């Protein structure tokens, strides 16, 4: 297995507040890697450090290294290329104030693709993958922001898939989506695993259990435990806190 992402001794700061206290782990190619942990444990910050959007929040700082495909993200010469390599889905849906079609065509157009035939097919493919196509196929030219919360969330998933990312980061994607649709998207994720590496940040412990091969339990900026799911969701976790969190005893 090749290592897709290597994180080494990562420390991040908001002003003087330290979020991660020097964490190290690897994510392998084509795996679904789940991150669980209570609020404020640094899950979202970690994702933002990987695609380098953390630096847009004033006062943030990071030390240590994050490597994607062996390349240090802090030193990369093509930060836009890096971000195009990573699809990001935020917990609250952000439908850009564009039409549904333009939302999904945004990233391909940004990288210079304007061929109508290709874009049409591509938009349809992405919307099908995010289980939204049937609901919006007749109104692709209406505003993305007019969709319901759950539909917008699926629109952001379609958008994240639109630039054919090598890594897909899902940050609590199912918050605004009903269980049936969630299951449909989970099935899609299992398919997508063949093409890309998926990082799944979730509050639903069972979702991590269903989808991931490995799960990382992050708590207050430290890795409490990182192991294969067979271990993480068994009675013999290395750390007692993992067992308690997974089984809802604390956290």
């Amino acid at each position, binding site marked *: 297995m090749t290592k897709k992402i290597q994180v080494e001794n990562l420390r991040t700061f908001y002003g003087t507040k330290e979020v991660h206290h020097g964490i190290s782990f690897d994510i392998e190619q084509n795996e679904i890697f789940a991150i669980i942990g209570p609020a404020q444990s640094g899950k979202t910050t970690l994702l933002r450090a990987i*695609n380098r*959007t953390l630096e*847009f929040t*004033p006062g943030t700082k990071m030390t240590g290294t994050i490597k994607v495909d062996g390349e240090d993200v802090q030193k990369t010469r093509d930060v*836009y*290329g890096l*971000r*195009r390599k*990573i699809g*990001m889905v*935020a917990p*609250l849906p*952000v439908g*850009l*104030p*564009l039409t549904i079609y333009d939302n999904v065509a*945004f*990233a391909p*157009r*940004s*990288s210079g693709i304007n061929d109508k035939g290709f874009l049409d097919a591509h938009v349809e493919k992405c919307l099908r993958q995010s289980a939204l196509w049937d609901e919006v196929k007749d109104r692709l030219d209406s505003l993305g922001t007019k969709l319901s919360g759950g539909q917008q969330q699926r629109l*952001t998933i379609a*958008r*994240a898939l*639109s*630039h054919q990312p090598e890594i897909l980061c899902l940050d609590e994607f199912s918050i605004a989506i009903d269980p049936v649709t969630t299951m449909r998207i989970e099935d899609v994720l299992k398919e997508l695993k063949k093409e890309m590496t998926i990082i799944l940040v979730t509050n639903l412990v069972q979702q991590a259990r269903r989808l991931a091969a490995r799960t990382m339990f992050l708590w207050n900026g430290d890795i409490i435990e990182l192991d294969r799911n067979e271990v993480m969701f068994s009675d013999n976790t290395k750390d007692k806190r993992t067992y308690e969190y997974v089984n809802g005893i604390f956290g």
Partner: protein
Amino acid sequence: MKPAVPRASRSQLAIMVERVIEGLVYICGISAIIFVFGIFFFVFKEGAPFLAKLNFTEFFFSKEWIPTSSVQPKYGIGALIVGTVSVTALAMLIAVPFGLGAAVFVSEFCTGKTKETLKITIELLAAIPSVVWGFIGLSVMSPVIISVFHVPVGVNLLNAALLLALMSVPIMVSIGEDALKAVPDSYREAGIALGATKWQLIYRVLIPAAKNGLLAAVLLGVGRAIGETMAVLMATGHAVNIPDSIFDPVRTLTATIAAELGETSHGSPHYQVLFLIGVVLFSITAVVNLAADFIVKGIKRK
């Protein structure tokens, strides 16, 4: 069961007071409409008696404005309308790219001290009285235009348009920057996470998201330019003339009213025509605003 907190019964007085306040709020609400129609009515009333004697074709299309002739006064405002429109158009041609560009720069590229300094300076620019601008036009801009372009007169269309541009840019920057600031940061982050460069983010996400506010910024600038009087009176050259080039002097509707109204006798034809010019001005701004409204609504419907 009795409620734990006794339900207060409202006194007759409280109900009365509420009615009165409701009425006052209603009056405040419709006062803007009353004032607009009131102003229009009074301006129109002063000019109306002349309408019967007015030759509309001559009034709108003739470029002969000789209101003080004792033999055959002529009231053609064609040249004045062309003056106002050309000065405003040229000013906007200069001001819109600069104003919106500056708004984007201040909002998206500046941080911390630079941003604060720039904003304060730009607002200071908006506070300069128009007569001072006119003075700058006469004493600074005019010689510069003469020496740079080798033209005989420095007070002309270009001079006034530059002044109006300088005057409307600060408003556009302030309003435009507010509009861009109102775009949620989550849009920025979403666009950036999709691998958009700063420019792609600006023209694909931020400008579409803020278009209503940016349009409002431009229109406020247009409004300022059409209505401006003192600076254009001083810098256009104030000659009734349909310009052939941007170096020709012109005269605007506003400057004509300002310069001549004090010299006319109350109720004379000249006086009444000046009020009709006021009505024309009023109509131009109303049309501009209405057009803007329709444009904004059209954008929303889409």
